[in-house]
């Protein structure tokens, strides 16, 4: 009775120790960061791995902040980000590997504001959005809707989308304390789809289930729908670049080739499939 148990224990221990060594032999690229970029990064990885069977690409999310932390701790090769890197984070990278990380723009994203499909509101101005998300406007009536309280959905503060929205729509002010924070854009969308008084924000890629509002830059200005046209000519006011950051020392060989491919016509051709917008040709490889 005792011997098989011991054999099993030692066997599993030995397996646990040897296994990472065995898998490390294949060319593995780890990608970590923005939840917004996860779907796109997985799509890229999938197609690329089909073309180059020797390469293994592991994609995980967690938020841009998580990605930058991993870049500083050197626990990932590529860092997906939906915001620019901060000076503090650059400092961490320089301390870790002595160089600034290289920044690549890889796609464009229009940020949508979602409301429930039963909500009569079709368009809001940036100012009204700031009022709603900072908690100054608490009732839909104030922006021309029904007499109902507004339920605000936001993202966890490790999310790049959270910080982008805070910076560009709220002008750096804090979200209202009443904002419910959810773990991903899919959750926000699901919540808004179920909550008739809800409002949330997230990538335009996550489409179904809720109504995307049209946005006015100024009060009384034209209401602009998020689309490739309006994002590329920047008439739609809430858009951003999506980035990949890499330690320049790693930016060669398999990793370098992968990055090049992402920014080529082949890689950019996949961007629209998941609902983002490809880089305009001058920004490509």
């Amino acid at each position: 009775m005792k011997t098989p148990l011991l054999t099993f224990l030692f066997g599993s221990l030995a397996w646990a120790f040897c296994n990472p060594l065995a898998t490390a032999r294949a060319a593995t690229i780890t990608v970590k960061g923005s939840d917004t970029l996860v779907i796109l990064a997985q799509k890229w990885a999938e197609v690329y791995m089909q073309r180059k069977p020797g390469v293994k690409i592991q994609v995980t999310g967690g938020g841009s902040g998580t990605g930058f932390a991993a870049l500083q701790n050197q626990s990932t090769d590529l860092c997906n980000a939906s915001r620019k890197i901060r000076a503090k984070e650059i400092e961490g990278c320089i301390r870790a590997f002595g160089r600034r990380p290289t920044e690549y723009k890889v796609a464009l994203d229009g940020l949508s504001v979602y409301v429930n499909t039963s909500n009569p509101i079709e368009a809001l101005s940036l100012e009204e959005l700031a009022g709603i998300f900072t908690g100054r406007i608490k009732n839909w009536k104030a922006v021309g809707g029904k007499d109902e309280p507004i339920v605000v959905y936001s993202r966890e503060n490790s999310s790049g989308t959270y910080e982008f929205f805070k910076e560009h729509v709220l002008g750096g002010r804090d979200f209202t304390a009443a904002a419910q924070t959810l773990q991903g854009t899919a959750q926000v969308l699901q919540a808004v789809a179920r909550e008739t008084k809800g409002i949330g924000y997230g990538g335009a890629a996550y489409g179904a289930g809720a109504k995307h509002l049209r946005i006015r830059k100024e009060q009384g200005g034209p209401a602009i729908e998020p689309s490739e046209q309006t994002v590329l000519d920047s008439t739609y006011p809430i858009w951003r670049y999506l980035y990949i950051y890499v330690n320049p020392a790693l930016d060669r060989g398999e990793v370098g080739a992968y990055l090049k491919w992402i920014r080529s016509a082949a890689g950019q051709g996949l961007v629209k499939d998941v609902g983002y917008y490809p880089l305009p040709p001058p920004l490509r490889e």
Partner: protein
Amino acid sequence: MAEPSHPGGRRPGWQALDRGQRARPWEWVAEQAIRVVSVTAIVLVFLIFVFVMREALPVLLGRVNSAAAQERRALPVEQMDRLDPEELRQYLELSRKEFAEMDRDTLRLLMEVKLEAAEEVPEDKDAPLNTAAWRYLLGPHQWTGYDRPAYIWQPVSSIHKYNIVPLIVGSLKTSVVALLFAVPLALAAALYVSQLAPPRLKEWVKPGIELLAGIPSVVLGFFGLVVLATFLQQVCGYASRLNAFVAGIALGLACIPVIFSIAEDALTSVPRSFSEAALALGSSRWQAAWQVVLPAAVPGVFAAIVLGFGRAVGETMVVLMASGNASLLTWSVFDSTRTMTATIAAELAETVFGGHHYRILFLLGALLFAVTFLSNLLGELVIQRLKRRLEGGR
């Protein structure tokens, strides 16, 4: 000197090998191995506590500075050569070892980044405040852009606002709801199973309830998020779909087996003579259970509730998924709420090691550890006392 105290001349340990236990050296080895394992377990728990405390200690002692404006004294890059190495090292906040390993180019890059960081500092009256000081951790403050002093948890912001009061209140709110829901149910079930149920039924009900403990908390959380939230909103008609009430009910499901099994043990260990005496005096079975057995087992029931509270406060996944996680400070259970555990789970992954946000999350961890440790300790102590009393030695 140990000789006389061992009848038959037997002595434990290695010395015994050449005597009576010569034939069983493996037993001695196994005994020692088990002893080592058990001591290791205790030491590990202690080490975890030390680790958590070590990470949180700088905040406790007020040695962490989270002011947004501390970068303001940035120097132009050209100044680099005018500083002597020690000054430069201190300016760049490097350890001696790091400094020795860096070449000039790296140092230059760091100088540049310092300047960039200085440009990112917000123009704000609160920028020079050390928001990780106790005053701001526990007291209200009127931050820029707020119209009255408030308790604000906004760690990712131009000014890091680290007030932990909303999180503590959030944890308390969900735990209290959980207990209010779980205690009556679990106690009633325990009373029924231990005193009133026919033995055949008891054999089914008891494992059935204890099986609830086996449901992974993430499944309970998902159940709360998808099913309970919608159902309870339809029944109660409150505004916010995810709130302390929903999370508390889902949490209560996780607490029921804990409270049930301990309370049931306590009720069962009340000597049969108590209820027999009551029945002999003409009371009904219900009267015997309610008026005689339950009061006799009160300390054990109390322990069960305290241990259930420990479980509720420490539970993470359920509240992360079902509470909505808004860091509101209100007493209404129908408002969305953010607990300490959910905050740690949601935010720790993105913080910089050793940074102020990281340390404050560890402070929350230490607080949780202390609360659950104390409630478990209290529960265990009461159970021990009850056992001793019921086993006769008053």
